[in-house]
């Protein structure tokens, strides 16, 4: 273990101890129930407000715990690293934040997440809580067909949590809040590349070997290899490849206003990420699109993986206004 270059005590305790640190760092925004392994907004439950709950494997920080707070999530339930949480956690989170107006579950499309959230939603219904589940599946690297588990939920998750969270804050009902999250998912697409693998703490070694000078193209967020391997290009070439993959699938209207989310996978410095973002905006503008909102940084990560993903959301006036609405979480904060 000493040879693993990670700041931890025991790999088995990594998620719990990280949550304990999150609670200490952001006690004004959130509280952590270590017994149930859930992160809950400090002032939950908010009576009369629709509550948002998300969750998934740990290892993608700041998602989801870093998005708990005003204008975003009411609760997050992290599983083990890269492993879906269990229905008990999701149910505990749902009952902890239900303010009587219903709860929206934001579920990334992975087999385990979908199954566990399905069981949890059934349990919540048994307790009389109205649950709307929204599935996020924005990754164009996966062909949605009978031959796969469907597209993965990646960057659009962050945007859906922000925009639906703002809708809940302004008083929308549970169906409307879920509707905003679904609209985000329909109007957003993502694509990612990796320059290195990542090291899950329990395994202690990289998931795959990537020789120098090569990159994995079409990666997800669990350290799984991508769709193919290519020679590592320049930032300009990579930006063009990301934009082509996303825009050819999204097919936005000519001159559409878009939100551009350049996401770091965890191991890529902001120096490079901003450089890439500049190239992406140039490429988008050359294609006649109008970047109107931006998010740049590591927000949905894959441990220490080096690499980046691009998410483009075709905006409308309502989505832009919801993006600008106040948010106060550990990872995103403006307008407050």
């Amino acid at each position, binding site marked *: 273990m000493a040879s693993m270059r990670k700041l931890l005590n025991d790999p088995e305790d990594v998620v719990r101890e990280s949550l304990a640190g999150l609670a200490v760092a952001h006690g004004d925004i959130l509280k952590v129930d270590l017994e149930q392994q859930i992160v809950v907004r400090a002032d939950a439950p908010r009576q009369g407000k629709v509550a948002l709950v998300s969750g998934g494997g740990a290892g993608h920080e700041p998602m989801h715990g870093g998005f708990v707070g005003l204008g975003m999530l009411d609760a997050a339930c992290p*599983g083990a690293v890269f492993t*879906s949480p269990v229905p008990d956690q999701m149910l505990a989170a749902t009952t902890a934040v239900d303010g009587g107006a219903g709860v929206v579950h934001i579920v990334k499309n992975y*087999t*385990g997440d979908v199954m566990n959230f399905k069981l949890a939603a059934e349990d919540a219904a048994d307790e009389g809580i109205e649950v709307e589940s929204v599935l996020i599946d924005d990754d164009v690297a*996966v062909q949605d067909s009978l031959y*796969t588990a469907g597209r993965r939920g990646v960057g659009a998750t962050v945007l859906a949590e922000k925009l639906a969270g703002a809708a809940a804050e302004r008083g929308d009902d549970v169906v409307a809040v879920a509707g905003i999250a679904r609209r985000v998912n329909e109007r957003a697409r993502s694509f990612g590349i990796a320059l290195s693998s990542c090291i899950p703490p*329990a395994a202690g070694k990289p998931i795959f070997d990537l020789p120098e000078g090569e990159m994995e193209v079409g990666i997800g967020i669990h*350290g799984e290899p991508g769709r193919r391997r290519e020679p590592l290009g320049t930032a300009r070439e990579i930006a063009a490849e990301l934009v082509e993959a996303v825009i050819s699938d999204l097919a936005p209207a000519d001159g559409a206003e878009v939100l551009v989310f350049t996401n770091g996978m965890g191991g890529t410095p902001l120096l490079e990420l901003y450089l890439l973002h500049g190239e992406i905006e140039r490429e988008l503008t050359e294609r006649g699109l109008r970047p109107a909102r931006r998010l740049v940084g590591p927000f949905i990560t894959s441990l220490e993986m080096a690499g980046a993903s691009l998410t483009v959301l075709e905006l409308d006036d309502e989505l832009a206004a919801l993006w600008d609405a106040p948010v106060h979480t550990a990872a995103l904060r403006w307008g407050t």
Partner: protein
Amino acid sequence: MSAVSVNAWMEAASAAIAADAERLTQLDSAIGDGDHGTNLTRGFRAVVEALAGSEEPAPGRRLILAGKTLVSKVGGASGPLWGMALRRAGRAVADAESLDGPALADALEAALAGVVELGSAEPGDKTMVDALTPATQALRAAVDAGQPLADAVAAATSAAEEGARSTVPLQARKGRASYLGERSIGHEDPGAASTVLIIAALGRALEE
């Protein structure tokens, strides 16, 4: 007439998975995210603990407890899938006094149906279904033919092994491995591999 002890089955499965965790994790690293061995080890250890603390005599109810424990301890896809499998298996044998050949065949058929219902995988999708389906069929055929339970379980184990091997040339169509497309070809499915261990564990849980 011989029967399967649920406690002994789960203990043998837990030991086999823990002993083979490294291999399962390697298989999962090739086409998944490299945690299958650790997750299942954690889950089956919890099952053994839960069963040890239970006074419940009926094997069906012990299977339900095992399934519930997996659902609430494992997460991922394997937790709900094996949890559903054992819960359905337990319900299928209800309050039967022992898990004899016909009861075990009923239990495995119900387990398979539960897995297919939750995961909607079909044979050939490169999943645990590719091992569990032939194992279930082999056990049922052997029991119907009046073979001793030990022989029936051995037949089920061989069928599961062959089923797991058959996943190597397949392209995954379910679960995380499906994201790899053609790159999933040439690897044994980790869920099928762990299913072999769990079926084989039946052979170490037989009592007279």
